[in-house]
């Protein structure tokens, strides 16, 4: 080791130990930067955001398009807004298993022994996941425009649909993190995640109109928040009444976040 002398460290000292808003934002920034660099070090972790929108769009449009809507073009108008609703859920899936593996290393212990707000590690994750959702949604829309998606309202309506999907996606990121912090292994996170994901996605109005489904399933799709989100996005793109489904979706997003975010932070504090 070399005999280098260290310069003195100047750190703002707060007798109360409270963390101010600016410091908190700086911490979240530093942690989000870490998450971005993890993606850079492992580009394959972006496959879900980059490839899923392309594969899903091609698959569903050409497999189901003719059968469900009679024409591919009509089905694009129907399904693409639904896929926008689904992107958040698929992206959020991976964050839970990611945070679970993070705990297998000692780095979370280091964060938890540092003078930072314990929520900042999780908030930084949400920030980066939102970024990944935006990438996935951009690719989805680009793909959809190539296949002939027609925004029958205004670009502003389209943006509103994207923003709504992101808000709901953020609430799912919190849920996924809570799951990741509550179970033991990353594999369990994925297993449970799939179990929840499949019925919610297919038991909704995302892929097919619900009118042909048996009564019990149709009732389920009505309370499924993904149906509401898909309906809201669909009408924001194609025109039609949106107020009801938008409000319901916002209420779900806020409700889910209000429950799962504090629980996730609490689990983060206590997880051993």
């Amino acid at each position, binding site marked *: *080791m*070399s005999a*280098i002398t*260290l*310069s*003195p*460290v*100047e*750190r*703002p*000292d*707060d*007798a*109360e*130990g*409270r*963390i101010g808003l600016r*410091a908190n934002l*700086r*911490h979240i*920034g*530093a*942690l989000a*930067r*870490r998450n971005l*660099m*993890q993606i850079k*070090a*492992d580009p394959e972790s972006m496959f879900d955001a980059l490839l899923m929108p392309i594969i899903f769009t091609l698959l569903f449009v050409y497999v189901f398009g003719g059968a469900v809507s009679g024409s591919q073009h009509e089905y694009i108008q129907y399904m693409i807004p639904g896929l926008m609703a689904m992107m958040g859920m698929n992206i959020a899936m991976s964050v839970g298993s990611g945070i679970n593996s993070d705990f297998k*290393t*000692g*780095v979370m*212990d*280091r*964060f*938890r*022994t*540092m*003078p*930072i707000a314990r929520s900042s590690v999780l908030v930084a994750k949400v920030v980066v996941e939102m970024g990944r959702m935006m990438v996935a949604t951009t690719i989805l829309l680009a793909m959809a425009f190539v296949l002939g998606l027609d925004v029958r309202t205004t670009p502003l309506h389209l943006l509103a649909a994207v923003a709504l999907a992101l808000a709901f996606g953020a609430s799912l990121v919190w849920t996924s993190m809570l799951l990741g912090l509550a179970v033991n292994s990353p594999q369990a996170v994925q297993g449970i995640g799939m179990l929840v994901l499949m019925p919610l996605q297919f038991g909704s109005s995302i892929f097919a109109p619900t009118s042909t489904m048996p009564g019990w399933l149709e009732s389920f799709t009505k309370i499924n928040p993904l149906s509401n989100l898909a309906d809201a996005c669909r009408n924001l793109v194609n025109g039609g009444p949106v107020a009801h489904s938008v409000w319901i979706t916002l209420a779900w997003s806020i409700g889910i976040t209000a429950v799962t975010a504090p629980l996730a932070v609490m689990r983060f504090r206590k997880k*051993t």
Partner: protein
Amino acid sequence: MAMNRIADTTNAVEVHGVVKHYGETKALDGVDLAVPQGTVMGVLGPNGAGKTTLVRVLSTLIRPDAGSAFVAGYDVLRQPRQLRRVIGLTGQYASVDEALSGRENLYMIGRLLDLSRRAARLRADELLERFSLTEAAGRAAKGYSGGMRRRLDLAASMIGAPRVLYLDEPTTGLDPRTRNEVWDEVQRMVGDGTTVLLTTQYMEEAENLAESVTVIDRGRVIAGGSIAELKAKVGGRTLHVRPVVVAELPSMAQALDEYGVHGATADQAAGLLSVPIADDGQLTSVVRALGAGGFGIAHMDTHLPSLDEVFLAVTGQRAGGTDPTDPTDPADPTDPAGTKIEEFAA
């Protein structure tokens, strides 16, 4: 520094009757400990003794069920935020982000400790140089060797110039050369005025780094004091002699006894003669005595007491003073320390 800190506390770490139970397991069962400022305290114990639990309590990772603990005058229960500003922790498993480069790891921690961008960069580079990591600074930490990772981990703990540093088995799993590097670095930190609480399974490590030791077992302190005091209890070094002809072991022990070197024990199964050594002169006497008797020596070396031997000595000594009816008492003389350590490891 902060105003509400107890101004002239002489102990950097104070632990009073700390208890932490996990169901039936008593990880900590009423631990008392005091570490004077600027010193190194070695916490010695086998796997499962409660060392890591103690470190986790002192670094606010877990809350004790009972008792109190103060670090730099801050209460672990009531002032965790202030406490986190003055501690550094290096665990058994390197707590660095493997996907990030060494430099990025240190920069991130500097930013989390509220250093400006410039100061964080400067501090990272200084520490990389000090820990001989400058060449590898740009590479992802997952490509580092075990020793490099541990050094990066130590560097990360040093970013905020902590007043109290916890080292939880800092050299477990390291090769001897790397272990020496870590020791050198710890000694320099102490030279800079940092108080260190070191947990270890190795008597040798405690002897190299610590002024005082606390021996814990099953969540309880079973001995404590300076290294010299502990050694006085445990005994000094042991000379192991491996003869060419194992059958000669008993006659070798007898020859030593006649020469004035007492207490040698012959272990036929291991093919070893163990001789307690009080001073260096005795080494010469052993060689002379064995040479005069014409015994062939294949190998000989000296050993510090192992943790097993420390335990045997410490628990054996306490046996008279404790309740013999308590089956969980760690000082139970009928339970050889060696098997106890096996149990813990399992």
